[in-house]
C-alpha cells in the first residue's frame, strides 16, 4: 500500500532541450577523474601516488578525519596525475584506464548476513560513498545507523534524469540494494515515486511506498523527509540516489564495486539530447562531441541540473553523484532596457511582472544574472518556492550572520543547499541563497559536528 503526499508550493521550469528517453552507450573515456569537492565536508588524504597502478575498487583517498570513508577507483589503470590548486588543494585525481582487474569481495548468503557484515562490506568496498547522511549531506558515517533511509524516484529539477528510465533494466539490482539496506536498518526503506505513474517500483518488497504529488522542489529528499519522518536534532537519516542504490545492490551480487552511471545529457543547444550509459568520472568530451555541439565556445557545462549543479570546463570530468549533465548558453550579452516589465517575455520568469508565465511552452535559458545583486527587499517570495515549515529568508539571514543557535532553531539540520535552487533562481535581489546556506552548513559542521 502506498501513501499519497501532496507538496503544494514550487514551480516546474520546463526548459527546452530535455534529454529524450533514448539510451546510448557512451564512447569509452580515456581518462577518469575523482574530484574531492564532490564529497561535501571530506578532507582528502591520498592513498596512492602519481604513477601507481590501481584496480577497480581500490581506495584512492580517504577522509582525514574518518578513515572508513574512502573513495575507490571507478576503473582499473594507473594514476596519471594528481592536479593541485592553491595551497596544494587537490582538484582532481586523474586515472588512465588500462587493463581490466578489480578487487573482489566474497559476499555471504544475503538471507543470513549480519548487520555488521553488511556495514563492513559497504565500508571496505567504498560503496558507503553512495550513501549520504542528513543533516549536512555528508558521506554516511559507519558508526551510527540512521532512523530511516530515503530514496526518491520522483525527480523534479529542470533537466532532471528520469530514474524510472535509468533503472528499467536494473530492477533486480535495485531490489537487492533495497533488501540489503532494509536489512541493515531493520525496517523498510522509504521510497517515493511520482503521484501519477504506475511504475515497476510499486511492486518492490521491503519498501514503504510514497506517491508524491507536486512540482519542483518536491523531488528533493528534504521536502519529503520533512513530511514523512522529520529530522530532529541529534537524529540521522540516510539518503541514496536511485542508481547508486542499484550499484550497491549490484555489489552485493557480484562482490565488485559498481561505478555505473547513466546520465541524462540535456541542453537546448545539443543536436540530440539523450541518455548515456557510462562510468563515474568519465570525461565530458566522451559524452558531448563535435557532432552534438558544433562549438564549445559560449557554452557552460554543468555537472547536475542548472539550478544546483556545479560548473565544469569541457576538458573536465563527470561528478561522482550527478545523473544529469546540462549544457547551457552563456548569457554574457547586454539587454537594452531589459528591466522593463512585460517586455522581454522570452526570458523565463516566475514573477508576474513578466508575461513569461502566460506563454507556456518550453523555455530557452542562458546564464545571464538578469540584473544585479541587491539588498533583500521583496518578502514572501522565497516561501513560494520552499514548501517546508521553515522560514527560508530568516534561515538565510541567520546563515549570513553565522548565528549558530538561530540557524539550529530555524531548521538548518533539515535542509541542504540544493533545496534553495529555486529560491536562488527566483530571487528579485539575486541573493546567492545556496552559497549562503552552504557556508552556514559548513559552519555548523565545524562548530557543532
Amino acid at each position: 500500500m502506498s501513501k499519497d503526499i501532496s507538496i503544494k508550493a514550487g514551480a516546474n521550469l520546463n526548459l527546452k532541450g530535455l534529454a529524450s528517453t533514448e539510451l546510448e552507450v557512451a564512447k569509452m573515456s580515456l581518462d577518469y577523474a575523482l574530484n574531492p569537492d564532490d564529497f561535501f565536508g571530506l578532507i582528502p588524504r591520498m592513498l596512492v601516488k602519481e604513477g601507481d597502478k590501481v584496480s577497480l575498487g581500490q581506495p584512492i583517498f580517504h577522509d582525514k578525519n574518518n578513515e572508513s570513508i574512502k573513495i575507490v577507483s571507478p576503473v582499473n589503470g594507473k594514476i596519471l596525475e594528481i592536479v593541485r590548486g592553491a595551497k596544494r588543494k587537490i582538484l582532481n585525481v586523474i586515472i588512465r584506464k588500462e587493463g581490466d582487474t578489480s578487487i573482489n569481495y566474497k559476499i555471504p548468503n544475503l538471507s543470513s548476513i549480519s548487520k555488521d557484515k553488511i556495514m563492513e562490506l559497504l565500508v571496505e568496498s567504498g560503496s558507503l560513498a553512495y550513501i549520504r547522511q542528513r543533516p549536512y549531506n555528508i558521506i554516511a558515517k559507519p558508526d551510527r545507523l540512521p532512523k530511516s533511509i530515503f530514496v526518491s524516484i520522483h525527480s523534479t529539477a529542470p533537466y532532471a534524469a528520469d530514474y524510472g528510465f535509468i533503472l528499467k533494466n536494473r530492477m533486480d539490482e535495485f531490489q537487492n540494494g533495497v533488501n540489503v539496506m532494509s536489512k541493515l536498518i531493520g525496517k523498510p526503506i522509504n521510497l517515493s515515486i511520482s503521484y501519477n505513474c504506475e511504475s515497476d517500483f510499486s511492486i518492490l518488497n521491503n519498501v514503504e511506498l510514497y506517491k508524491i504529488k507536486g512540482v519542483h522542489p518536491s523531488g528533493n529528499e528534504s521536502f519529503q523527509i520533512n513530511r514523512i519522518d522529520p529530522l530532529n536534532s541529534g537524529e540521522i537519516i540516510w539518503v541514496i540516489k536511485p542508481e547508486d542504490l542499484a550499484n550497491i545492490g549490484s555489489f552485493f551480487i557480484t562482490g565488485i564495486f559498481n561505478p555505473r552511471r547513466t546520465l541524462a545529457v540535456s541542453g537546448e543547444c545539443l543536436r540530440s539530447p539523450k541518455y548515456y550509459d557510462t562510468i563515474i568520472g568519465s570525461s565530458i568530451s566522451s559524452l558531448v562531441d563535435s557532432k552534438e555541439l558544433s562549438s564549445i565556445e559560449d557554452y557552460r557545462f554543468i555537472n547536475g541540473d542548472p539550478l544546483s549543479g556545479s560548473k565544469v570546463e569541457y576538458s573536465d570530468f563527470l561528478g561522482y553523484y550527478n545523473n544529469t549533465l546540462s549544457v547551457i548558453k552563456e548569457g554574457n550579452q547586454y539587454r537594452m532596457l531589459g528591466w522593463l516589465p512585460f517586455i522581454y517575455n522570452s526570458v523565463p520568469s516566475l514573477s508576474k511582472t513578466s508575461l513569461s508565465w502566460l506563454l507556456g511552452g518550453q523555455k530557452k535559458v542562458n546564464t545571464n544574472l538578469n540584473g544585479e545583486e541587491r539588498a533583500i527587499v521583496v518578502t514572501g517570495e522565497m516561501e513560494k518556492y520552499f514548501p517546508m515549515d521553515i522560514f527560508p529568508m530568516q534561515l538565510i539571514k541567520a546563515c549570513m550572520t553565522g548565528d549558530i543557535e538561530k540557524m539550529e532553531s530555524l531548521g538548518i539540520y533539515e535542509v541542504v543547499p540544493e533545496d534553495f535552487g529555486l529560491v536562488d533562481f527566483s530571487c528579485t535581489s539575486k541573493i546567492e541563497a545556496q552559497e549562503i546556506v552552504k557556508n552556514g552548513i559548513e559552519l555548523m559542521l565545524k562548530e557543532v559536528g
Partner: protein
Amino acid sequence: MDFIRKQVDTLKKPFTKGGKLERLYPAFNAFETMLFVPNHTTSKGSHIRDGVDLKRTMITVIIALVPALFYGMYNTGYQYYIQTDIQFTFIDAVLHGAYKIFPMIAVSYAVGLAIEFAFAVYRNHPVNEGYLVTGLLIPMIMPIDMPLWMLAISVIFAVLIAKEAFGGTGMNILNPALTARAFAFFAYPTFMSGDKVWVSEASNVDGISGETILGTLAANGEVAYSSASMFMGSIPGSVAETSVFFVLIGALLLIITGVGSWRIMLSGVIGASVVGILFNLWGANSLMSFEWYNHLLVGGFAFGIVFMATDPVSAAQTTKGKWIYGFLVGVFCILIRVFNPAYPEGVMLAILLMNVFAPLIDHYVIETNVSMRRKRWRDVKLETT
C-alpha cells in the same frame, strides 16, 4: 542598440578600475544599468536566473502609481477652478495640476537621488532602486501648495535619518516616504493642517475654502460631499491620495504582478471596517457616526494601505505577520482619526506605528515555528529515553 552600447563603453572607460573617475563608478553604474541590463553571468549558486530584478519590481510600483498621479494633477486643477469660479476645461485642470506637481516631483528626485548617489559613492555600493518609488511617493502625499524648500528638507530628513542611517535600502525600519510626511507634519504644523493648504492657491485667493472631509469632521462640521465623489476623488486633500478609484487601479496591478501584498491590503480594509462598524454602533460624536464605508473612502486610507503599508521592507515579513500587521494598520487608522481630532488623518501615524511593531510581530510568528520544532525534538528525546 550596438551603437548606443559602443558609446556607453567609451564613456565607461574613465570610471573603471584604474581610471580617473574610478571612485564615481557606482554613479556611472546606476545610469548604465538603467540603460542596459548588464552582461554579468552567474558565478555561484543557480546557473540560471529569473528575468525579474529590483529595477523591474520598482518600476512596476511606479506604473501602479501613475493613474493616481494623473488624477491628482486633474483634481488639483479642478479644485482650484471650481472654487474660484473660473471657466475651465479638462485640459486646463490637468495643466494647472502639472504646473504645480512637476516641480515637486523634480525637487523630490533631485534632492533624494543626490543623497543616494553620494552614499553609494561613499560606501562604494551600487545605487539601490528603492528611491525611485519613494521619490515619487513623497510629492504625492504632500499638500499641493507646500513650498519646495519645505519639501526638500523633508526629503533630506527622510533619506538621511529614516534610511541611510540604518544602512540604506532594505535595512530601514520606517517607510521613508511616510517619514518625510511625518517630518513635514510635525515640523511645519501650521502649514500642514487647517483649511488653507489642500487646494491650490487657497492661501492667496480669498474665496477658497479647502477644508478636507476629515478636518471638517474633527471640527464637528457637516460633510458636503457624497460617497461617490469621495470614491472618485473630486475632494480636497493631498496631491494624489483623494481618488480611491484610481488608487484601486494601481492596487490591481500590484496584486496581479504580486509586487504588493494583497494580504496586507485586505486585512487592512477588514481592520478598518471592523473598528468603523463598532464606532457606528457606538455613535457618540460626528466622527464616530461617520459611516464606516466612508472612512475607507476619505483621507489617505486607500493610498496608504495600498502603497505605503505594503512596502516590503518596513512591513511584517512573514505571511501570518502580514495579516496581523495589515489588520492593526486598519484598526489604528480609524482609532486615531476618531479619538485624536488633533490628527484628523490617522493612516500615516497608524502605518508608522505598525512599522515599528512589525519586527515584533514577525518575532512572535517565527517563535511559534521555532517552539514547534523544539517541541518535536523534545518529544523524540522522551520517546527514546
